[in-house]
């Protein structure tokens, strides 16, 4: 079974870490990740940019783009995509296509800061 682990934290707090604190945390995480990678159990790992860089596409008819992260609490996170785009407009186009195929709910479009594709998972 594949599992996704979704990371939640106070972004203000994480954002206020010094470079040294941030690096120390990343180093400790790398130890755990490397162990998994060696066992062929690590898929993609991503660190997202802050929510201030996010935009949200509400899958209404017509779809509506709003600035900022998805802030509602009545829907639940059901999946995610990682796509390669030139800019936000291109990413929004992809989101619109996906939305047309599956209307309802919303997509939050968030730039990815760090991305490690990971090996093939056994």
């Amino acid at each position, binding site marked *: 079974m594949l599992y996704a682990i979704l990371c939640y934290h106070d972004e203000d707090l994480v954002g206020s870490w010094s470079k040294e604190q941030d690096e120390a945390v990343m180093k400790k995480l790398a130890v755990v990740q490397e162990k998994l990678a060696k066992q062929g159990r690590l898929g993609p790992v991503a660190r997202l940019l802050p929510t*201030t860089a996010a*935009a949200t596409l509400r899958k209404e008819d017509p779809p509506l783009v709003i600035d900022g992260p998805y802030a509602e609490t009545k829907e639940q996170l059901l999946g995610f995509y990682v796509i390669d785009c030139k800019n936000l407009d291109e990413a929004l186009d992809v989101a619109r296509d996906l939305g047309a195929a599956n209307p309802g709910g919303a997509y939050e479009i968030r730039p990815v800061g760090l991305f490690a594709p990971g090996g093939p998972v056994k």
Partner: protein
Amino acid sequence: MTDTAWIDAALTSARPQAVGALLRYFRDLDTAEEAFQNASLRALKSWPQNGPPRDPAAWLIMVGRNAAIDEVRRSRKQQPLPEDDQHISDLDDAEEQLAERLDGSHYRDDILRLLFICCHPELPATQQIALALRIVSGLSVKQIARAFLVSEAAMEQRITRAKARVAEANVPFETPGPVERSERLAAVAAMIYLIFNEGYSASGDTVQARSSLCEEAIRLARLLLRLFPSEPEIMGLTALLLLQHARAASRFNSAGEVILLEDQDRSLWNQNMITEGVALIDKAMRHRRSGAYQIQAAIAALHARAERPEDTDWKQIDLLYGALELAQPSPVVTLNRAVAVSKVRGAEAALEMIEPLASRLSNYFHFFGVRGALLMQLGRNEEARVAFDRAIALANTSAEAAHIRMHLDRLMRDSSPRGATTGK
């Protein structure tokens, strides 16, 4: 992190919202600050035992307000006080209710007001910055004094004076209307930019002490952007600060001297900040409501994206400076544009562009630095020397002067007999 480090971080991040709300209740800055201070002390006692509250800001507002009201009662009636922990013990329910009432729009205006009172037009820039760092960011007087290279006592006095001015100003506490809100937003954005510049323009031995100002400005810009997620100029401001600060590690040599953009080691640029800055400017542009911060951020993004100096898209930068001249006309902007023009159309065209600025920039270091460099490119060495001499006389920092002296040395070499005969 140690036990208290996470509490410190949580207090810092909750501070603007909590002090902003307390200011709305008490309408007095000192009372609001004191209330927050009291609440923080209780947090230090209570959080390690009970764990962090679900909403630290709401907890602090609640406890701070109660503490201040107790204070008033105590001074009025001299009555026996309720047990210290009485408020805290029933906090779970109360916090829940309070959190319900703290809707987004309310605390948005609280924080905006808190930032706005620091931008009082009668306050000189340094006082605005000091006040914001003290009451919004919660930096200690000692920390602020260190950044400004003054004694703690002098800074204490400066802040006290600024606070007195603010109290006289009677900033209205009603919810602002849309026009007023956007005026406040513009003033606050300008103040955040000031804080950043104070850090960014540091050099030599002040670099270390002031780099925290850049980080603080970025934190405040992000805060503002979260409150006003659809304002392209706030996206632009945040992007601009990130893109500028991304170069921090490469801007000075080990002697603390400025390294010019084209000579910087680009591998030292912070790619995370660049990615975030570019993403933000990208998002801002979709609004098609251009503004000075967005344009400057777009220029910074073009520099940041160039892997080598010769990859810089000067043509686009020239166009953007043209747009900036329209949005925010200033001889300094034209001077910056001239640098781009010199790369696209040559030094002659650039020189022509800056000649009309001479009278208005007659005391501006960079004018003579740029003029000298352009003249040097054209082989007009004698005139270049005059311009560089003037630049050195006007230099604000020893690093600026050192940089110009480097040019002068090169001129001397070039105009020595050997250089003259082999010259082009």
